[in-house]
C-alpha cells in the first residue's frame, strides 16, 4: 500500500520536475535532461503488474506530451523502455527473483550506470527519431541523442544516490 502511494507521488512529482524545471534548463542550446525516465527505473513491481506498469508509463508520457505539444512522442518512448525494462535489467545486472526487493545500492556502480545509460539511450533515440521523422541531419540528431543520454544519466544517477534511502 505504502509503495503504491510512493509510486503515485513519484508519478506526479516527476511530471512537475520535468515540466517546471528541467524543460527550462538549457544546456548547450538544445538539450534537456529527461528525469521522468526515473519512473520506469524505479517502478517497484514487475511480473504481476505489467499491465499497470505499461499503462502508467503511457499516462506519464502523454502528460509530458500535453505540456510539450509533442503529440505522442514521450508516451511512445517511455512505454517502449517500460516494456523492455526487465530484459535489459536481466542482460546487464543478471536475473533477480524480485526487482521489488532490490535497491540500487546493492548493484555495483558500473552496472547500475550501464543500465541507466541503455535505458536513457533507447529513450532519447526514440524521442529524437520521432521528432525528426526523416533521414535529414543525421549527424546533428546523433549528437543530440548522445548529449541528451549523458545529461539524463547524470541527473538520474545523482537523484538515485541522493534520494534513495540506504537500507
Amino acid at each position, binding site marked *: 500500500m505504502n509503495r503504491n502511494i510512493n509510486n503515485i507521488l513519484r508519478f506526479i512529482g516527476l511530471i512537475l520536475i520535468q515540466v517546471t524545471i528541467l524543460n527550462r534548463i*538549457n544546456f548547450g542550446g*538544445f538539450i534537456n535532461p529527461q528525469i521522468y525516465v526515473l519512473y520506469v527505473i524505479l517502478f517497484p513491481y514487475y511480473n504481476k503488474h505489467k499491465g499497470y506498469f*505499461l499503462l502508467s508509463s503511457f499516462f506519464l*508520457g*502523454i502528460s509530458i506530451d500535453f505540456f*510539450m505539444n*509533442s*503529440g505522442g512522442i514521450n508516451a511512445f518512448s517511455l*512505454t517502449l523502455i517500460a516494456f523492455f525494462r526487465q530484459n535489459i535489467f536481466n542482460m546487464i545486472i543478471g536475473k533477480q527473483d524480485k526487482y521489488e526487493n532490490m535497491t540500487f545500492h546493492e548493484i555495483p556502480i558500473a552496472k547500475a550506470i550501464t543500465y541507466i545509460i541503455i535505458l536513457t539511450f533507447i529513450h532519447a533515440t526514440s524521442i529524437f527519431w520521432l521528432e525528426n521523422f526523416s533521414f535529414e541531419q543525421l549527424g546533428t540528431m546523433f549528437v543530440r541523442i548522445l548529449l541528451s543520454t549523458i545529461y539524463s544519466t547524470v541527473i538520474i544517477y545523482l537523484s538515485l544516490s541522493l534520494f534513495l534511502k540506504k537500507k
Partner: protein
Amino acid sequence: MQQLINFLAKRKYIFLFLLIQLITLWLTIQNKDYHRSKFINSTGNFVGGIYTSINNFDKYLDLYDENKQLVEENAKLHSMLKSSMIEVGINMQSYTDTNALRIVQKYNFTDAEIINNSYRHRNNHITINKGLKNGVNDGDGVITSNGVIGVIESTGENYSSVISILNKNLQVNAKLKKSNYFGSLSWPGKDRSKFILSDIPKEAKFSIGDTIITGGYSTIFPEGINIGTIEKFNIIKDQNYYHITVKPFIDYANIKSVYIIHNLHREEIKETENKKTN
C-alpha cells in the same frame, strides 16, 4: 478456441504494448500537421494554469530587458506620430479629409505573454496566455516588434498554442526590403539564429546585411515586419534561385511579450480565392 484464448492471454501484455505504441504513433503523426494538432496540446486550463504560475515567477527576472524593449518600441512609435513629422509642400488637409481618404482597419493587434517557450527541438511550439475569450483564432499570426514568432495552431478558452517559426511545418512569405523579390523563409533546424530564405530569383540584387521583411502575400502577417538580415548567400547549382542564410533580429530563446495579429480580411480573401478555383 481454448487454445486461442490461452494464446492471447499469454501474450496480453505484448498486445497492450503494441496497442499503446500504435496510439502514440498515431498521435505523433497527427501532430505533424499543424492544422490537425488538436488532441495533445497545452491549451487546456490545467496545463496552461501551471505554465502561468511558473511564468509569474520568472517574469520578475526579465523586467529589465522587457522594459528596454518597450521603451525602444515606444520610441519607434513616437517617431511615426504626426507631431514628429513636418509638412513638406503638400497641404495635409486633403489627406486628413475623410472623403479623400478612407482608412479601413485590416489588422487587429492583441497583446499576449508567452508562458511556455520551446526552441531546442526540431519542431517547436509556444504557449501564450490568450485564448478564445480574447478573440484569438486559429491561423492568426504572432509577432514581436522585431520579428515573426509563429502562427496560432489551436486555441483553448484562455490559452493558445503557437506553432513556432522554429518548426519544420511552418514557412513564412518573406521579401527583400529594398526590392520586391519574395521567397519563403523556413528553419532548417540546428541553430536558432540561422534561417533559410529560398526561392529568390537570381535576377535579384542585394548584399550581405540587407534587411528581410515579411512579404504581403500571406493572409497571416502584414507586409513589412522585420525578420532579420542576410548573413550569406549562394546560388544553387542548376537552379535559378538563391539560397540565403538569414540571421533574425531577435533571439528566440528570449521572448516574452508578443502581439497576436488577426487579419480582418482573411475570410474574405479566402472566399475569393476559393471562388476562383471552383
